[in-house]
């Protein structure tokens, strides 16, 4: 129960960050050139769909198809926001990130899927990998915000 609350806290933190950067990109999207749009769309759709599908699987175990669709939808939305060359790239990277996040969430819930030895399954805690991933996500969003400025 405490682990679920911790994951809920992490996901709300990342969701707030994502909301802020979505509105920033929406305000400034006319200033970008093509290459920059491609890089931003790839980075943000891949990491966002990866992280949020992992949280989704950890919170609601068993809904694999819904989380894949959720990842593809995140990529499609960011591509639609940033327009022309980025839309296909956003859909593709969102689907890839969604598949990876689903797999990581399923392995974290049931370590026997990966043949991790039983003695170390108790030592493997559920919250270390999501915590590291969410810290990394916050760093990447900060660096995107910095790259808008230069």
């Amino acid at each position: 129960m405490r682990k679920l609350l911790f994951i809920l806290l992490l996901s709300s933190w990342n969701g707030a960050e994502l909301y802020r950067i979505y509105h920033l990109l929406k305000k400034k999207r006319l200033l970008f050139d093509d290459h920059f749009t491609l890089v931003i769309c790839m980075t943000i759709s891949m990491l966002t769909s990866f992280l949020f599908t992992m949280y989704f699987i950890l919170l609601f175990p068993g809904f694999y198809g819904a989380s894949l669709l959720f990842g593809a939808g995140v990529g499609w939305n960011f591509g639609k926001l940033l327009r022309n060359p980025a839309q296909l790239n956003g859909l593709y990277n969102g689907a890839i990130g969604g598949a990876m996040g689903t797999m990581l969430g399923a392995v974290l819930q049931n370590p026997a899927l990966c043949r991790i030895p039983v003695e170390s399954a108790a030592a493997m805690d559920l919250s270390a990998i999501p915590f590291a991933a969410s810290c990394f996500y916050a760093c990447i969003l900060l660096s995107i915000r910095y790259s808008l400025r230069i």
Partner: protein
Amino acid sequence: MKEVTLLYLLTIDILLCGILFVYVFRRKKWVGIQLGMNISQAMGGVAALLAGIVLILAFPFHFSLITITSAAIGAAAGAAFGLLFDYQTCLAGVTNGFMVGIMAPMLGSVLDMPGQIILFVHGLFLFCFLFIIISIQRS
């Protein structure tokens, strides 16, 4: 395979990555923006793949620590190769390295015949190495 052999292999890979980094660093004015982006993505991904698979086969009892370590190695390799060129290239390399580094220990721990896949991944690494050098010399 023995742990010592795996760690020797990892050392050789780190040396090869260093050699490639020095090579690209000396010729970075010849390299355009597209080739730079491809170099940083490819090297981040391959470094993360090698580190994840070899480390999880050497120490199979520390899954979460090795996942975080290999993700950090991939992100650092992508950032180091990307910062030679541009800030956006660095961003792309970091993301790709992190993503492959999260997945690689999961792949390494389900293998039943690890020797073949280690051979295959090292072949992929050497192929990328040669291909990057050839495409830098052509540009």
